[in-house]
C-alpha cells in the first residue's frame, strides 16, 4: 500500500573559505559610450556566475546588465580569483567588483562635478546617467561623462580592487573564533509516497525556501535551487559508489550508478526569504551549495512520517527501506 508522508529540514551554510584568506580581485573599465567591461579571474562553471557578476557591476555604475561585457578566466588578462568554490562567487568576487566599480564611478563623479556645479559626493549613477542626489533632472548621460573624463580631463574611468571576507582564527583547543563573515539559511519540506510492500519511495513535492540575501538575479537563484534539489534527491534515494573487497569501484558508470532523471524529479515550489545582508554586494550572500544541503534530510523525515521507519544510512534505496519496514513489522508482530 502506498503511504504518504511529509518531512522538513532546515539548515545554515557559510559563504567563503573556513578562516583561510580567499580573496578575489576585479577590474572595471567604463567605455566612452557608457558601456563597461568587467575583468574577473573566476570561471563560469554553468551556474550563471558571469551574468550575476555583470549585474553587480552594472548596478554600481547605474547601467543595465546588457551594457556590461564580462571577460573571465585567463591568467594572462584577468586578475587573481580564488575561484568557483565555497559558494563564494557572488559574495566575495561580487564585493571586489562593487569596490572596483566604485573607483571607476568616482572618476566619473569627479569629471561630472564641475559640469553640474556640485561636489563629487553629491552625485549618483542611475538609469545610465550621472545625476545630482535629490535633483535627478540635473544630470548628464553616463556616456557623455565617460567620454569627457577620458578625452578632455584625461582620466579614464577605470578601477581595480580586491576583497577578502574578514575572519578570526579558530582556537585549536575549543574551535572558538569567527571562521566566516556570513551565513545563509533555508528550509525544505518534502512530501513522499512510500510503497510499504516494495520500499519504493516517490517524492511528490518539495517546497524550498532559501535565503541568499538580496537575490541579484531571481531566475538564476531559482535555477540553482532546482539543480541543488536534484542532487539532493539522488543523494537521498539513489546514488552510491560501491567498492569490492580489493578497493575497486564496482559501478563506475552511469548504467549501474543510478542518478535522478527528469522523471524522478518532484514538483518543486521555490520561494526566497526577503533579506538583505549589509556586508554583501548590494545585499547579496550566495546560494550555490546550500540548495543541496537539506533535501536528503527532509526526505528521510518524510519517509518516517509515511511508514514509521527511520533510515539512518544513506541512500534510502527501496531495498533498505523495505528491510527497515520488515524489521519494524517483525518487532511489532
Amino acid at each position, binding site marked *: 500500500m502506498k503511504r504518504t508522508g511529509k518531512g522538513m529540514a532546515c539548515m545554515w551554510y557559510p559563504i567563503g573559505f573556513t578562516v583561510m584568506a580567499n580573496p578575489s580581485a576585479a577590474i572595471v573599465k567604463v567605455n566612452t559610450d557608457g558601456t563597461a567591461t568587467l575583468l574577473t579571474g573566476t570561471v563560469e562553471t*554553468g551556474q550563471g556566475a558571469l551574468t550575476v557578476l555583470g549585474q553587480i557591476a552594472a548596478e554600481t555604475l547605474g547601467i543595465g546588465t546588457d551594457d556590461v561585457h564580462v571577460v573571465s578566466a585567463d591568467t594572462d588578462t584577468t586578475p587573481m580569483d580564488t575561484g568557483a568554490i565555497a559558494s563564494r562567487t557572488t559574495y566575495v568576487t561580487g564585493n571586489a567588483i562593487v569596490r572596483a566599480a566604485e573607483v571607476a564611478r568616482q572618476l566619473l563623479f569627479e569629471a561630472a562635478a564641475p559640469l553640474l556645479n556640485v561636489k563629487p559626493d553629491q552625485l549618483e549613477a542611475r538609469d545610465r546617467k550621472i545625476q545630482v542626489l535629490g535633483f535627478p533632472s540635473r544630470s548628464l548621460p553616463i556616456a557623455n561623462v565617460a567620454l569627457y573624463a577620458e578625452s578632455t580631463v584625461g582620466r579614464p574611468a577605470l578601477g581595480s580592487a580586491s576583497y577578502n571576507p574578514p575572519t578570526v582564527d579558530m582556537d585549536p*583547543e575549543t574551535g572558538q573564533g569567527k571562521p566566516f563573515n556570513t551565513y545563509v539559511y533555508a528550509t525544505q519540506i518534502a512530501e513522499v509516497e512510500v510503497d510499504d510492500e516494495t520500499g519504493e519511495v516517490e517524492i511528490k513535492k518539495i*517546497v524550498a525556501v532559501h535565503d541568499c540575501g538580496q537575490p541579484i538575479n531571481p531566475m538564476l537563484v531559482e535555477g540553482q535551487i532546482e539543480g541543488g534539489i536534484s542532487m539532493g534527491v539522488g543523494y537521498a534515494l539513489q546514488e552510491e559508489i560501491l567498492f569490492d573487497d580489493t578497493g575497486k569501484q564496482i559501478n563506475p558508470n552511469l548504467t549501474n550508478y543510478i542518478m535522478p532523471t527528469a522523471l524522478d524529479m518532484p514538483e518543486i515550489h521555490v*520561494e526566497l526569504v526577503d533579506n538583505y545582508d549589509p556586508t554583501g554586494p548590494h545585499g547579496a550572500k550566495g546560494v550555490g551549495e546550500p540548495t543541496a544541503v537539506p533535501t536528503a534530510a527532509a526526505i528521510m523525515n518524510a519517509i518516517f512520517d509515511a511508514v514509521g521507519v527511520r533510515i539512518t544510512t544513506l541512500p534510502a534505496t527501496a531495498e533498505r527501506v523495505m528491510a527497515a519496514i520488515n524489521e519494524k513489522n517483525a518487532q511489532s508482530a
Partner: protein
Amino acid sequence: MATKPTKDVIDQKVGIQDTDNSLTGALRVKEDHPVIYPLSLPENDERQATPAVGQSATRSDARLHGLGQTQYIDDIKFPNMIYAKVLRSERAHAKIVSIDVSEAEAMPGVYATVTGKEFPTNSFGPTLQDQPVLADTVVRHFGDGVAAVAAVSEQVAQEALKKIKVVYEDLPVVLDPEEAFKDEILIHGPKSNTYASKVIKKGDVKKALAKADHVFTNRYKTQFVEHVPIEPHASIALWDGNGRVTLWSSLGRITLGREDISRTLDIPQSKVRMIGTIVGGNFGGKNEITNEPILALLSKKTGRPVKCTYTRGDEFVSSTIRHPFIMDYTTGINNDGKIVARKIRMLLDGGAYCSWTGTTIGKGSILAAGPYNIDNLQVESFAVYTNKTTTGAMRGFGAPQVCFAYESQMDEMAHALGIDPLTIRLKNTFREGSLSPTSQTLHSVVVEESLLQASEAFGWNRG
C-alpha cells in the same frame, strides 16, 4: 523589445529547417548551419533594465549554448593536436617496482610517454601536497595514474596503455575508515592515517547531559557519491617555442591551477597561461589540477598541442568524490523541546589523499550542531586515509552529511516527545544576534522566517 518569433523564423535564421536524416545530412559539418546575426531570438527586457540588481536577466551565455557556439574543451581543436590517456593502478595499495614504457613508445602512432619520475615536483594538493601527479613509488588507490601516453588518436593512446608493464609489490589494504583509524596499516609512510581533525567545545556537555530530561543517542552514516558533471575533466596543453605553456582547462580555479603547474613543472608563473573554458558543471570536483601537468610535459616532449578528456570511468575512479561520514550524535533535551547539550563524534573517510578534506571537516564540524542555540556543545571529528578513491570538495563540504544527522535526530526527538517538527525547531533556532557554535555573533539570520514561510507554502499544518 524584440517580439517573440515563430518557430519557422528561428529555424530559418539558425539554418535548422532541414531535418532530413539521410546520409548526406548526417555527414554535413557544423559549418553547414551558419549562425548569421542578427537572429530573431527572444531577448528579455530585464537585460536592459535599470537598476540591474533584482532583474531576472537572461544569461549572456545562454544564446551561445543554445546555438552550439560555446566552445567546451571537446569543441576546441588545433592543427597537429594529439591525444593523451592515463594508465591507472591495478592495485589499491602497492609499491611500484618498475614501469616499462618501451613497448608503448615503439607503437606506431605513439608520440611520447611520461611517468611520475619526470616531474620536477611530483606532488600536489590544495592543502597537503600528498598526491603525486603520476604515482612513482607507491599507489594508494585504483585511481592513481602511473603513466601516460600521447598518440595520434585516443584509440591508439588507449591501445598503447596496454603495452605498459608495471610491476607491483602488494601492500596491505585498508578500506574501512574505522579500521584505518586504528593505524595498524599505514597508508602514508610512518604518519598516522588520521590526517585531519577538528574540535569545537562550548559550555559543559557532560554536566548538561546528566541534567537533561531526555538523552538521545543515534548513529548516522552516509555514502560516497560522484559529482557527475555533464562535461568530464578535460584540458589541452601547448608548450611553445618561448618555453611558455598555455593550458585550456575545465578547472574551476585557474589562479591556484597556475600556481600548481608552475610548482610541479618548476617553471615561473609568468611562463604559464591558464585559460578557464566554459565549464559543463563543477560541483566541487574541478577545484584542483588533475591531468594538466601531464599534458604540459607531453606537449613539451612532442612540440604539439595535447588534449585529454576523461572518460566517465576516469571521472568516477580518479577524480574526487564526496566524503562518507560516520556520525554519532548524543543530544540532551528537556520536556519542553529545548536542546540543552549535544555531543558529536564524526569519522570521515578521507580516501587515498587529502584534497579538500581540511575544508570538509572544518565546515562539517562547525555546522554539525545545526542552526540551533545549544549552550553546551562538543564536536570531535577525525578524517582518515583509506585505500579508496580520494574524497574532496563537493557541493556542501560536509553540510549535507551533518544536516541529515541533525535534522533526522530533531525529528526522532520531536516524535518521542510528542512535539510537532516545526514547533521543536522554532524552539531552538538561531535568531538575529545568536552565538554560533564558535561563539560568532550571527547577523542576517532568517532560519525562523524560512521555516514559517516554507510551512505556509507547503500547508504544513493542514493535517
